[in-house]
């Protein structure tokens, strides 16, 4: 192995040679494993991967995403989920209409309109077809309030944290409600503009510093000063 954990690498840099396994964002040629993107090396046993610093969102089944309705069709809606592919939300995958027998024709135009924001889950996606979404389920459906923050989807894992530790920290310190879409769209609604701004600042800081260590402590320190500070001023 030619690199160490957490080392920053560029595309084409050699990571290892020999009996290693090529993981995420790496590729293999002959006996060598190379990085495919700019990112940070992660090692799990003999499996080497790269956590990219930037990249587009690629849907995975069961991802919860926040998307924007861009078109209404005969049987459903086209949703922009900031992926390279348009997503389809069929009418049968919405709470109200999903209970009807499929033969019955229903006017779906009133449910979601173009420009609406919808939280949905990825039902299906593969290389040959566009992602299929569902809005049936707890927490899914139209979004009516909150501030929209767009973050690179590669930073979402760090924003959530291991077992949700980072996002819970932000929610606790700011008392804001935060909905994180795997596709990089985050919705923040706080009881006050200060609480919202504090949460947004934390999100931006994580986006910038995701590849560094000690981030959780710094976020906690920043939020405590900011929230306390605001409280004192008001």
């Amino acid at each position, binding site marked *: 192995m030619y690199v160490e954990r957490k080392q920053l*690498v560029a595309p084409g840099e050699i990571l290892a040679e020999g009996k290693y396994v090529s993981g995420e964002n790496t590729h293999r040629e002959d006996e060598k494993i190379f990085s495919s993107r*700019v990112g940070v090396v992660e090692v799990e046993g003999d499996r080497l991967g790269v956590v990219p610093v930037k990249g587009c969102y690629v849907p995975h089944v069961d991802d919860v995403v926040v998307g924007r309705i861009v078109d209404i069709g005969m049987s459903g809606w086209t949703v922009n989920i900031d992926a390279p592919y348009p997503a389809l939300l069929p009418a049968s995958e919405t709470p109200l209409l999903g209970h009807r027998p499929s033969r019955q024709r229903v006017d779906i135009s009133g449910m979601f309109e173009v420009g609406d924001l919808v939280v949905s889950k990825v039902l299906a996606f593969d290389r*040959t077809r566009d992602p299929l979404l569902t809005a049936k389920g707890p927490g899914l459906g139209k979004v009516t309030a909150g501030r929209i923050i767009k973050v690179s989807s*590669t930073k979402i894992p760090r924003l959530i944290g291991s077992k949700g530790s980072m996002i819970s920290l932000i929610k606790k310190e700011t008392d804001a409600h935060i909905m994180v879409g795997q596709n990089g769209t985050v919705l923040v609604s706080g009881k006050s503009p200060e609480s919202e701004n504090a949460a947004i600042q934390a999100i931006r800081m994580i986006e910038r510093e995701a590849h560094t260590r000690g981030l959780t402590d*710094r976020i906690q320190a920043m939020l405590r000063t900011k929230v306390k500070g605001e409280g004192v001023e008001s």
Partner: protein
Amino acid sequence: MKVEEKPVELIDQNGLRIDGRRLDELRPIKMEVGVLDKANGSACIEQGKNKILAAVYGPREAHPKHIALPHRAVLRCRYHMAPFSTSERKSPAPSRREQELSKVIRESLEPAVLSEYYPRTTIDLFIEVLQSDGGSRCAGITAASLALADAGIPMRGLVAACAVGKIAGRVALDLFDTEDKQGEADLPVAIMPRSNVVTLIQMDGILTPEEFQTAFDMAVRTCHTIHEQQKAVLKQRYLSIKEEVEEKNDVEKKEK
């Protein structure tokens, strides 16, 4: 505006060129990534007086749909020069030269992009020459490579490019505009240094087989040097942030 230009000695008695460089010397290169806000990836390169901007949008939905390929992304490339980029104003409409360069530049980067990752999409690459002074296609390829990496597009490796020419009978590295106009040959080369493969090579002028050998070797060596700078620039932004915050952390820990 024209003030009469007299033909100048391309190489003086000390073996130095008009701009003071030796025959095997590269012009100073400055590279920067992430210079644009809207593009998914971007880079700016200054090489001598060349000022070139490269930007990437994608992978994104193919428009029109019929150009999409089922198993991989379509790479589209547009090389374009600003009207004020050359000594005489150039019409903004794409010339035949710009169309040819758009093609060879795309073909120089195709082998580097792991396009199988994103079937049925397009990756759009735009190169804008803001000021041109010889060797702009090579500087454009170097910048385009950075823009693709900056956008997070998976790549086999980066592509670096440079041109070697012949002036006053001598093989010389990285000709600028005047040298190119009065010179006897121009050989632009692009390689993917990680596997030492050539992705672009063109030549116009006259070179003997020996001159070609010398020129080609010089180009390949120089591309490797440029490649080192590319890797450093891509990592620099993140390394600076890392240093900045981790240092602060360590200092604060010590103070406690």
